[in-house]
């Protein structure tokens, strides 16, 4: 118990506590700073770029998480069937997750390049468009592009984890339900989904946390541009805290992420894990 407590204290409690403390100071790089109360938060509350980053982060997290869940579940259901070369396909599905984020971000950087995008080139060759798509230059396109990159990268985690969950569901339940005349949808709705819910809760909790705190994809692809249209709270925190040297303000932005993260965790645990819902009842 003591080693575990010590580890938690050193690697979790202390950094978190330090971050919270820094958010209440005017600390800068190389200078400890003094306590200034909620001044950083007051500044942020009046900062359009901060609020834009909050909006971007929520949009990024919600859109990417929903799509990752839908596509990941669909992929897991397919991989759970008796396919030829099952192991091979499972390994392939894992690839985006295995590739280091920075490498996949660089690949997407080329894919989205305003002059050399292979997507634009292919669509133009097919005669579907007559000019290159401005993937990362237009705010709406840029947001959609970074969300798509995140989805590509995150699907394997959702798919493989849900697949592991699917394999724990006894086959006898499906046989019994089939004998009772259940359709495919009813099998999914009243057997698969309730039994998978605890795994979904855990998987989506992690998926939301990873997405909410994403940094590398944005940093490589856009540095938060164009005109801060893709700045997430994590990238803005880094830009202000480290590159800009305003440690206190950077910490305050990072701390401002905590309520959202807590909400996501609480939703997963107390929402998705409701027993009634798991047992097939209405919610």
């Amino acid at each position, binding site marked *: 118990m003591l080693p575990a407590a010590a580890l938690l204290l050193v690697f979790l409690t202390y950094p978190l506590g330090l971050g919270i403390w820094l958010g209440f100071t005017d600390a800068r790089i190389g200078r400890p700073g003094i306590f200034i109360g909620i001044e950083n938060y007051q500044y942020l509350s009046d900062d359009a770029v901060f609020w834009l980053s909050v909006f971007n982060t929520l949009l990024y997290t919600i859109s990417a998480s929903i799509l990752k869940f839908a596509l990941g579940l669909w992929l897991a259901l397919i991989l759970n069937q008796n396919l030829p070369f099952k192991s091979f396909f499972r390994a392939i599905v894992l690839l985006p997750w295995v590739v280091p984020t920075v490498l996949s971000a660089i690949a997407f950087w080329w894919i989205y390049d305003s*002059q050399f995008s292979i997507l634009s080139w292919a669509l133009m060759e097919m005669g579907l468009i007559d000019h290159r798509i*401005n993937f990362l230059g237009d705010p709406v396109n*840029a947001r959609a592009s970074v969300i798509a990159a995140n989805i590509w990268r995150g699907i394997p985690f959702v798919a493989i984890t849900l697949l592991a969950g699917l394999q724990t569901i006894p086959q006898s339940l499906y046989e019994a339900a089939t004998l009772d005349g259940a359709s495919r949808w009813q099998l999914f709705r009243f057997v698969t989904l309730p039994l998978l819910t605890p795994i979904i809760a855990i998987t989506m909790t992690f998926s939301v946390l990873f997405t909410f705190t994403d940094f590398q994809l944005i940093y490589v692809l856009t*540095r938060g541009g164009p005109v801060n249209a893709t700045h997430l709270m994590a990238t803005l925190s880094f*830009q*202000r805290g480290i590159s*800009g040297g305003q440690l206190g303000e950077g910490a305050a932005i990072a701390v401002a992420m905590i309520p959202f993260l807590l909400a996501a965790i609480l939703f997963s645990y107390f929402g998705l894990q409701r027993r009634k819902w798991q047992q097939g009842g209405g919610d």
Partner: protein
Amino acid sequence: MKFTRRDVIRTTAGVAAGALGSRFVGSSAFAQEGLTYKPEDGAKLRMLRWSPFVQGDEDQWLANTKRFTEATGVEVRVDKESWEDIRPKAAVAANVGSGPDLMLVWFDDPHQYPDKLHDVSELGEYLGTKYGGWHDGPKQYATREGKFLGLPLATIGNAIVYRESWVKEAGFSEFPKDTAGFLELCKALQAKGHPAGFTHGHGVGDGNNYAHWLLWSHGGQMVDESGKVTINSPETLKAIEYAQELYKTFIPGTESWLDVNNNRAFLAGELGVIANGISVYNTAKTNKDNDPKLAEIAKDMRTTSLPIGPVGKSVELFQVTTAVIFDYTPYPNAAKAYLQFMFEEQQMAEWITSSAAYCCQTLKAFDNNPVWAADPNNAAYAKASATLRPNGYAGPLGYASAATMADYVLVDMFAKAVTGQATPQEAMEEAEKRANRYYRV
């Protein structure tokens, strides 16, 4: 009587010059006059520098380092990092108090953590006196309240890079020297299918260089001498309006460009005009034997200074790199001896030459390095240290100037207006508000 470290250094420096001895004897490269630092026993140094844009720079830096090790016995490990990642690494090292002994940092980094840097005033004064004085711009980045926080190492010049044949095809016998003519050229180039391209994205170097040139060339400034934010001005409005017109002539997508996009597009033959360091020319020149297309581009490439605006003189921001020693190093003398060695004539002259016009000298004695005349395209970068204007002009360098630039306040102001996301007035007001937060109004 209390001896400070500086007293000890001064005392030992005098003695060491005569008695130091065997370690330096026989090494012509290390035959200093007047100032010598005795490396601490068992000293080993770790240095972090930026990844090279011109291979000759790194090769010569490492060769000079090897010479230093041979002369002194002090081992120096040179690590490298992408140039944009140097700032965060340096910030963490300064804050944590651990990391490389020396670093080559950028812009006003030394002003962000002056208390964490080893005072190298003695060495700075010595080198300045010996080599004709420091150029003022890079010196400002490396000094604070009269003290050298580091040694100004080099300025990375920025200049217009263009295709001569396309400019002629557009009806211009020579490259325009003023902003009005430049706009006309960009319009003509666009009409001929060879547009210009300057980044409005979060490119640390190219984005900031372009935005500052736009502002300063029209007489605008972020702050005045006292640090009062003055970005909301008629001059800034003129700069934004000019940027809006220029932007219409650009290749699509420049709002998303980071530092490498313009080089890439130019070398692919997509662009007629960009602003960049000499690295883009060097890339074409050094690879021309393997690629006929690059050979053709290299032959057609020309460089010149950015046009002069209504302000009537050339005013530009260039990247400046400073060599700093962190105060936490256990080997300050070895670190200073290393820097002294690298700045002495033989090493510095060879390094500037090998950098192929990418690194512009900060000491005036090296102004006539043969590299500047070796290729006509190098000339546009020769006076980068002499002409640069530090960021945060006309105010003092410090936390606020660094943070304002790092937060892309100016870059975003132009990007927002040229892309139509805000009117020029709105963009200016937002920039003013954001800058005021750093300048704490």
